[in-house]
């Protein structure tokens, strides 16, 4: 089985994640879209691992998962803090980046 198919699949998933970040207003859903992008990258790395005959790709995936776990913890904490103060998880409400 050629890794090409896995890569194309990973690309499609990655793109879906990108589009999700851009179109969904709910911060949680956008956050999940980011997770989807990470997973797409993981899939690609595992496919590379098989194609190249080394386990390094799988190790990298493992590390990505650990980092993703830490990131989710912090990210969700931030979302909760924002929700506490603004009573909303909509990304459009947080337009404080503008002056």
């Amino acid at each position: 089985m050629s890794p090409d198919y896995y890569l194309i699949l990973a690309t499609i998933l990655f793109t879906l994640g990108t589009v999700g970040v851009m179109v969904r207003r709910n911060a949680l859903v956008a956050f999940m879209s980011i997770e989807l992008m990470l997973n797409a990258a993981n899939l690609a790395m595992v496919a590379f691992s098989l194609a190249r005959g080394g386990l390094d790709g799988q190790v990298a995936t493992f590390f990505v998962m650990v980092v993703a776990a830490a990131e989710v913890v912090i990210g969700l904490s931030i979302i909760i803090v924002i929700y506490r103060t603004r009573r909303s998880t909509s990304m459009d409400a947080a337009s404080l980046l503008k002056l």
Partner: protein
Amino acid sequence: MIPLITGAEITFWIAGPLAVLGGIGLIAFRKAVYAALSMALTMINIAVLYASLDAMFLTFVQIIVYTGAIMMLFLFVLMLVGVDTPDSLVETLRGQRVAATLAGIGILGLIIFGIGGALTGVAPVGLDAANAQYGGNIEGLSALIFSRYVFAFELTSALLITAAVGAMVLGQRSRVHSRPTQKELSQERLRAYAEEGTHPGSLPNSGVLARHNSIATPGLLPDGTVSEQSVSETLAARGVIVDAPALSRATAQVFESVDSTIGEEDE
């Protein structure tokens, strides 16, 4: 010549489309809970794909960590915040969806063109040799993690501890005012009663009927009408309140029929 179809290919062609479906669901479902569940579907399918790629350890880590822990964490937070407000479908930013779709297509084409062009025709080497070196997939991974990548590993442990501490710090609700005492609370309640006529006592209980006693069942006032205050506003907004008068009517009918039956027997 008939192409040789392997188990991995069959797995791919089943799990791959399902994963894509989950991804589409993630960005298409209005309700965040459905989106999260679509995401979970994708996660599980990716785990299956890992299995087809001879990555058994990652398959289980994916299921346990991602699907089991991370996605459930998402659902917890969803329950905590705004599960009751589905996303509005009206896009507030002009042209955002069209532009996002175009950018997505651009990225898709770019990556497929770039990476696909570089890899076409490469035959996979396979992991048999790598796995066999230390006697298995898990042994091979641990050999790498604890030798070549040991520093990265130690750093991730530090990262996880930092993240845990960070989550605690962020979750801490710091008080601006001192906690109101019992006395202050009662005074506040009576002042509200004096000024606005708010009832100072506790709110009415939810209804306890013969066949329903959930918190979604409103209590009935002595005249038989529903007490709005007896159920949560969230439940009312979601429209899951049990129709208490209808229930009471049915009960009353039962009582009436029982009464009439007794009456007939008496007569």
